[in-house]
């Protein structure tokens, strides 16, 4: 009986490693040992590790990814990694071909990457399609842009905003905020600002102001928040306060006392020209 129990324990352990873990959602390369020895996936995974030692986009790394795809045609990570330097160098057709393959194998892990490039190339409808599939069909929990600046629901919210569907965008942002209740440490640098933007565009000025004020608690050096607080004050006919906010936005855009702006919001970016124009208008 003792031997049978031991067998059961061993079987349980082997089952978890051999079946359950490889079937779970692995976004990073992960441990090649999780794949069966001598399998195509194991060989492909090891080749990808080798490729990562060379400069991204170099001939050496690309040839290793090619080999990885040949020996392990089901190993999605190889297609994804090979696509990255193509996208970064403006070779979008080739990049798409590769990321489409990765998505066909593991949509839950790679839809975000295609959506990211659709977003920054202003194809908002396509971005929306990929991200809705990611969150609604694949139950993604928390996925960021490749650089980690924004959670992908922010891109989804802005994409809706760009199509004038503000309520849908706000709902996705609220869905994200709901996630943060259990995981507050994951809250990003610009989340309240983006929700505030959508409220503002949707003429929900009070809610917008509340979000911009929350944003100031996260970071009070981000110029764009001050620009929108200025717009709200101008709407409320408080011109003096509006002027102060616009001037603060401009100072921060010029880097005064550690101020900064950011161009990661695509068509939702605030430019120095916009701020300067407002300052001229209110004077």
């Amino acid at each position, binding site marked *: 009986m003792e031997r049978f129990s031991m067998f*059961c324990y061993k079987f*349980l352990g082997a089952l978890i490693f051999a079946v*359950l873990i490889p079937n779970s959602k692995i976004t990073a390369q992960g441990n090649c040992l999780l794949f069966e020895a001598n399998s195509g996936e194991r060989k492909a995974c090891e080749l990808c590790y080798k490729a990562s030692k060379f400069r991204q986009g170099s*001939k050496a790394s690309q040839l290793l990814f090619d080999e990885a795809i040949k020996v392990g045609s089901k190993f999605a990570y190889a297609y994804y990694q090979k696509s990255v330097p*193509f996208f970064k*160098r403006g070779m979008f057709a080739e990049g798409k071909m590769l990321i489409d393959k990765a998505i066909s194998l593991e949509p839950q892990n790679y839809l975000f990457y295609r959506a990211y490039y659709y977003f920054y190339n202003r194809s908002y409808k396509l971005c929306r399609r990929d991200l809705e599939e990611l969150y609604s069909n694949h139950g993604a929990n928390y996925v960021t842009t490749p650089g980690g600046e924004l959670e992908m629901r922010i891109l989804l919210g802005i994409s809706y905003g760009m199509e004038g569907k503000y309520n849908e965008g706000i709902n996705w942002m609220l869905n994200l905020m709901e996630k943060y209740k259990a995981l507050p440490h994951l809250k990003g640098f610009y989340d309240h600002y983006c929700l505030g933007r959508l409220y503002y565009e949707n003429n929900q000025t009070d809610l917008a102001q509340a979000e911009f004020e929350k944003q100031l608690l996260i970071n009070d050096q981000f110029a764009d928040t001050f620009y929108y607080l200025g717009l709200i004050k101008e709407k409320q006919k408080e011109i003096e306060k509006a002027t102060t906010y616009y001037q603060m936005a401009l100072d921060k855009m010029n880097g005064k006392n550690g101020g900064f702006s950011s161009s990661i919001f695509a068509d939702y970016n605030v430019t120095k020209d916009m701020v300067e124009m407002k300052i001229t208008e209110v004077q």
Partner: protein
Amino acid sequence: MKTKFLLVCLLPICVIALFSCKKENKVAGASFQIPSYDHDLGFIPFNKESDNSEYLVCDSTNVASGRNRVQYHGGNKRLKQDIISAFQFNASYANFDGFITIRFLVNCKHMPGRYRAQSLNYDFSIAEAPSNLLSTSLNIIKELDDWIVKSNNDEPQDYLKFINLRFTNGKIQHVLL
């Protein structure tokens, strides 16, 4: 008792494992052609049909391709203005919704060359641009010669730059850098 407990644990796991194995994603088709090049992706090799044979590159294995490494004198604002003001709409372009992506090198002597252009649909699949839109767009970019490079060291280096023109109804909607 202990054995019974183990069997109770094993049964649902086996069922889950069985279903996990059956839920297989679509496999990459055998017809898939891997885009493969015999050079670094940042490099654009010489093409005698389109390139100037006197245009040289210092090191094809060390082409810098960071987005801000090649800049335009007067900044992105002037670059966008120069492109948009040089573009002349033609009625034959009106049905084109997509991108024209232009890639080129700025060599170690800070000279631009080896221009390549491709037309794409919004989903990045290859598209056919109407009449001469591809060459018109290419010529606009070729006319720009006020490039400056941001070098990290004193060593002369070659750079790759790309500009993505987004068209809606045949007009430039965005110059994406």
